[in-house]
């Protein structure tokens, strides 16, 4: 089992719906449209050859500069039998961050999706109990988004633009 086989098998099934193929540090990575994320994961789970049946990780990333695809949901899947990993991404606009929940497929996704909702505001459609998990329920914003700087943006003494990112620059 190699990355090429996985890629061929996925392309055979989903054609050019899957884009952005790359393999940073040996891990096959691709992007899928938000509408078919559940289909892709189900296929990867059921396929007798691929057998990606373990959800290692599910998290979000915020790219404020990418218009229309600001939020990214990242799935790390693992085929433990053949010892191969796969990273899948799906981008959604921040105004309508709807992604299908994969809790039906993986019980593990429950809290990971809640965490991603809690910090990035991704709306997982079909999640049984989409509430905040680590932050207080009353919180009104999604703290891992880049518009929330770590420190008080009016403080100049901690602004270290000389060494990369400044406190207000995201």
């Amino acid at each position: 089992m190699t990355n090429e086989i996985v890629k061929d098998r996925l392309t055979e099934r989903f054609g050019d719906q899957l884009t952005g193929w790359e393999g940073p540090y040996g891990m096959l990575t691709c992007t899928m449209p938000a509408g078919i994320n559940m289909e892709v994961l189900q296929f990867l789970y059921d396929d007798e050859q691929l057998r990606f049946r373990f959800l290692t990780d599910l998290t979000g990333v915020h790219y404020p500069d990418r218009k229309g695809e600001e939020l990214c949901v990242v799935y790390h899947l693992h085929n433990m039998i053949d010892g191969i990993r796969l990273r899948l991404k799906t981008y959604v606009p921040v105004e309508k961050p709807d992604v299908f929940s994969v809790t039906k497929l993986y019980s593990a996704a429950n809290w990971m999706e809640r965490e991603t909702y809690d910090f990035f505001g991704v709306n997982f459609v079909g999640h049984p109990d989409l509430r905040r998990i680590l932050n207080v329920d009353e919180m009104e914003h999604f703290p891992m988004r880049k518009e929330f700087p770590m420190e008080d943006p009016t403080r100049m003494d901690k602004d270290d633009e000389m060494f990369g990112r400044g406190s207000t620059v995201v």
Partner: protein
Amino acid sequence: MRGSNEGLMSEQNQHIQLSDESVAKQTTTLNLGPTHPATHGVFENILEIDGEKVLSAKQTVGYIHRAFEKIAERRPYYQITPLTDRLNYCSAPINNMGWHMTIEKLLGLKLPKRVEYMRVLIMELARISDHLICNSVVAVDTGALTGFTYVFQWRELIYEIYEEICGSRLTTNMGRVGGFERNFSDVAWQKIDKFIEGFPKVMKEFEDLLTRNRIFMDRCIGAGPISAERALNYGFTGPNLRAAGVDYDVRIAEPYSSYEDFDFKIPTGTVGDVYDRYLVRNMEIWESLSIVKQAVEKIKQLENSDPAQKHVFYAPESDKYHLPPKEDVYTKMEALIYHFKMVMGEIAVPPGEIYHGVEGANGEVGYYLISDGGRAPYRLHFRRPCFIYYQAFPEMIKDGLLSDAIIALSSLNVIAGELDA
């Protein structure tokens, strides 16, 4: 006085409006946590119990959430190591090494064998200390305090070894990108030898105390079981998954830090109950001890074949990431510049996206790092095994006894720091 109290009571009675559901129900709602001594950490379970039988559990987590992922986006890489300490603080060195290895993978650094063996040695000691705590706490929760106090002396010795190596005990901040900050001292080696020599006898006695103890067996066998399928579906890794019968171990599946040079077994259980988890952890302690011995042996061999190896404790090509010796900083211009640049977090990390997983004491600890070439990560996500498998707790304790729920929780080894990040 008495009269006024009665007045208060009746007033309260008038104001309390219980829902019909609450009046009618025949079961008891019980708060287990967040500060219950038997939960060994700050997490809350609202149990619905019928007599002693657990009907359902509602979990609340996040009591000690410290926003590490957000903080990491503003920290230079070397300042993130102390954050990793505070995930699973029972085996901080594994988290530290995992983080260093993630950056090394991103940089493409290759470490000398001696450094990798030193890392293996320290990671296995950390695993022993973590498993010791977990198993002895399972015993405490069944009512046997003796084993706990007995093995704690040896955890203390492991902490002393940490102290000799890095200066601190619990939150170690051990090692640097490319190796260690300093070589292991002679005292550290002596203490490691002392541990290898003295620990087996103690471990044997600890096992004699519990493994075939009728009371302990009756309490643990069949408590909080989980099948292999459910465990995999719930994202279990580490000893808890292996207790359910799946022999997945990152050290074997994707060897890092030269684990492929070592000879060890992966113990597995069958039904995934508390007793299986206890046995798997005990077996792993023996395997880890064997790895520690092998590591010491291998390091000795390296030193015997080439005495210069004695002074190798970081990768020579990692000069740009490793603080120069103090005497050089005071006397040499280049060393001073490098020192300044490194302390200010100005090391060149290429843009890239990487996932690196290591076998932590509780399972696969993963670091998902996106670098945009800046001094801090663009995004850093920790895969925390506790957070993922703790979800299964209500399913595991359902229809069991309340006392089974307590030991199921301690045998899962849920560490609040890792749970809440």
